[in-house]
Structure formats: structure tokens, C-alpha cells
């Protein structure tokens, strides 16, 4: 099985180097419920790792454990040699290096779009207002929302808000971006604009961990797919393997439940332009 994986795909990005982020037997319990039952996988620099699987399988929990928004009950999360949940680790220093994008955007409603993006650098890095505003303007241009800088989040569409949230996370110049179901709360017509911003980020070489139900995005943009079920990783591998020749029945069940038959989901097609990374 492993031999087949090797012949089917290019070598994994960053393989041979130390992973930037690694999860080693992570356990998380909520009372009697074991949300994560020993999850292990690695993320290399420049990779887009997509976490897929049924709702409630622990994907989002894992993401919150990654930047210590949640404590863990076993195992370790390591960011470039630093153990995230070690008591001696300054969680805030690590969080600066991991940008996070939430399902419900969580923009700050009392701040303008520009200030939403600038507030991280000014508050956390002590950057002067002017410089932070310049960086924010630059990032808003990048996500196509420079004209909304003076608006308040409430006047923006969901897709626009999520693009601002991406810019806000990027303003801290993180090494890794964590996306927690970034398009799940969006109207279908605005999903595309968010995914294409994410795709551009991936093309620029940003390291990304994406919890998603957008299988087309995962297949086209993801370099490594991790399939979750009941708090466990049931399968992981390059997208060609996971989507086209899943080795585990669980994966097959999950994909067929979504209506995935190895081809693009129609709705997802408009979202992502074919890219140079596609064969």
C-alpha cells in the first residue's frame, strides 16, 4: 500500500525536512467524551494540509488545540521544536506565529475593517498606528477589499467578512495559517471568493492547515489530506490517493456520503481556477 502511494504521487512537500507543526498522539476529552483519541500527523513548511471528515469528528477541536485555545489531555503539539502545551511555553508567542480564521469570522464589530486588520500588529507587536495601517491597507488590497477599509464589518457580506478575517490573521505575518471551516457559514455565492483568496495564499507558499467540507478545494489545493473519524485519523495521504483510491472503508463511506465519486463537485467548480499545480 505504501509502495503504491509512492509510485502514484510526487514526493510530499518538505519531506525530508523537519515538520513545522506536528501532532503526536493528541488526546482531548470533554468529560466522558473523547474528542481526540490520539491524533498524529505532520505539517511541513509550504504545505496545504486539509482535514476532512464528518462533523463532530474532532477536526475543529484539533485546530483549537494547535494554538492552545484548548488544553490537551495527552500527547503533544510541537511548533518547530517548541511544545505548544508545555507549561513553560508562552502560548501568546506561539499564537502570533499561527494565524487563525474562524467559521463565524469573528471580526471585531466595533472596529472598522482597517482597524480590524491593524489591531493585532498595534496591540501585540507594538507597531505604530501609521505603519500598521499601511500593512492593513496592503493586505486588504490583497484580499480585494481596499475600498471597504473605512466600513464596519456589519455592512459587509459574509464572504467579504471572511476575507477581512484572513487579512487580519495575515497581518501578524504568521508562519502557519489555520482555517476552521472558513466557508461553512457562507452563502454559496460567496464561497468562491474566499476559496480563491485561500488558493492564492497557497500558491504563494503559505503553510496552511484547513478544516473543510469543500472536497474540490481539498483535492485541488491540498497537498496532504487527513481524514478524521470519531476523534481519530483514519487515513492520510496525498489527495490523489485519498480521493481517488481511498484505502480505508471509512474514507470511502464518508466521500460517497458527500456524493463524491472521484470527480469535481459541480458547485465547487466555479470557485477554484485551475492552477499550475494541477497535473
Amino acid at each position, binding site marked *: 500500500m505504501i509502495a503504491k502511494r509512492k509510485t502514484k504521487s510526487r514526493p510530499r512537500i518538505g519531506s525530508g525536512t523537519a515538520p513545522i507543526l506536528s501532532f503526536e498522539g493528541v488526546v482531548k476529552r470533554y468529560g466522558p467524551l473523547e474528542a481526540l483519541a490520539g491524533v498524529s500527523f505532520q505539517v511541513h513548511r509550504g504545505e496545504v494540509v486539509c482535514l476532512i471528515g464528518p462533523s463532530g469528528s474532532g477536526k475543529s477541536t484539533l485546530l483549537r488545540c494547535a494554538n492552545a485555545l484548548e488544553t490537551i489531555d495527552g500527547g503533544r503539539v510541537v511548533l518547530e521544536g517548541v511544545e505548544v502545551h508545555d507549561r513553560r511555553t508562552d502560548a*501568546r508567542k506561539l499564537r*502570533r506565529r499561527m494565524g487563525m480564521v474562524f467559521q463565524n469570522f469573528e471580526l*471585531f464589530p*466595533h472596529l472598522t475593517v482597517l482597524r480590524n486588520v491593524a489591531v493585532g500588529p498595534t496591540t*501585540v507587536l507594538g507597531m505604530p498606528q501609521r505603519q500598521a495601517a499601511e500593512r492593513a491597507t496592503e493586505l486588504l488590497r490583497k484580499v480585494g477589499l481596499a475600498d471597504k477599509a473605512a466600513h464596519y464589518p456589519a455592512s459587509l457580506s459574509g464572504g467579504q467578512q471572511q476575507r477581512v478575517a484572513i487579512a487580519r*490573521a495575515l497581518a501578524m505575518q504568521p508562519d502557519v495559517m489555520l482555517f476552521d471551516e472558513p466557508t461553512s457559514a457562507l452563502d454559496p455565492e460567496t464561497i468562491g471568493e474566499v476559496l480563491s483568496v485561500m488558493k492564492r495564499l497557497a500558491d504563494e507558499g503559505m503553510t496552511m492547515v484547513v478544516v473543510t467540507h469543500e472536497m474540490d478545494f481539498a483535492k485541488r489545493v491540498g497537498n496532504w489530506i487527513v481524514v478524521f473519524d470519531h476523534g481519530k485519523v483514519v487515513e492520510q495521504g496525498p489527495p490523489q490517493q485519498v480521493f481517488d483510491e481511498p484505502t480505508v472503508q471509512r474514507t470511502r463511506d464518508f466521500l460517497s456520503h458527500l456524493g463524491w465519486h472521484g470527480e469535481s463537485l459541480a458547485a465547487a467548480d466555479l470557485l477554484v481556477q485551475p492552477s499550475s499545480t494541477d497535473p
Partner: protein
Amino acid sequence: MTLDWSVVWDNRWRLIAGAEMTVILTATTMALALPGGLLLALLRLSHVRLVRSSTTGFVEFFRATPLILQIYWIFYVLPAAFDIRLSEFVTALLGLSLNVSSFNSETFRAGILSIRPGQWNAALALGMTKPQVLRKIILPQATLRVLPALASTWVSLFKDTSLVSIIAVADLSYVSLKIRSETYRVLEVLTAMGALYCLMGYPQAKLVDWMHRRFKVVE
């Protein structure tokens, strides 16, 4: 019954001075009770159980007992039991501030708790410290939400200051009641007193109504 309104006109400066005292008491009390209420609210949200429970006890005591008792208690018990002697004005200010701080703390606490946890997560994920999250993200939103409630408390306070007349603080009530007992012109003096309170209180009440409309939370 003949009415003699000259008694009001003759004592106009005393009444105005009383009204001034009422305004000063209201404004000073609120100036103390806003930070006081915020502090109590934060203590009540503390992770340390002892801090939380003792603050809760303090707040509940001041909310559950009459203001008049609190003022009397500070006025008579503090000097007798602890040999702490305060002027009438300071006594009044202390009683009102403790009382209103307790009410404000509940208002602030409700405001802080009404901000959804995702806002905390988003700010923490940027690398902010908890105090930074509170100052930059949570409190600005919470304050805006509770502004109408704080304004209502202000108007109640404005009227409740009349209670300090019992310890001879020369506010509008004390002055009015004193003029009444000097002149026996009950109807004229009480009417003037009512008119003055109303003149000052009505615009405040209207302002509160406006704030309720202006800062209504739309989610």
C-alpha cells in the same frame, strides 16, 4: 387657602444651591461608581473562587438592602464602631457610590458575558494578553451595549440623592424641606421642589430614551 409664591422667589438662591448639590452628588457618585462597578464586575469574573464569592456577597448586600439604611449605617456605625469620622458630604458620597457601584457591576458583568466567546478566541489567537482582549475588544463592545442601562441607573441615582437629606447634606430635598419647615408654606415649596426635580430630570430621561434607541444591539 391662599397661596403665597413669594416664599419660593425669596428662597430662590438657596433652592438653586440645593439643586447644584444634587447635580454634584449625582455626577461625583457616577464618576466613582463607573470604575467601581467595572472593578467589582471584573472581580466577580475572577478565576479565584474566594475573590469571586466575597465580591458577590458585597454586591448582593448593597443590592438587597435599602439605600437609606446604608447611608445611616455609614453615618452612625462607622464612627461608633470603628472611630471613622466622615463629613456628611463624604458619607453621602460613600453610601451612594457603594450602592450604585453594586448595581453598575451587575450591568457591566451582564455586558461582558453577553459578548460571545468567539470574540475572545479571535483576539487571543492574534496573540493578545487577556487584559488586552478585555480592554481593546470586550469592554468597548460591552460598554456600548450597557450604555442605556447605565443611563437608567443615572436617572434613578439623580432621584435617590434626595435620601441624603436625612443626614443633613444640603441637596435640593434638604433645602426644600428646610424652607418648608421655616415658612410652613408646604404646598408652594413642595411644588417648587417638584418642578425643579422635573426640570432637571426630564431631559435626562429623554436622553436615556434616545440612548436606548441609538445603541440598541442589532445582531
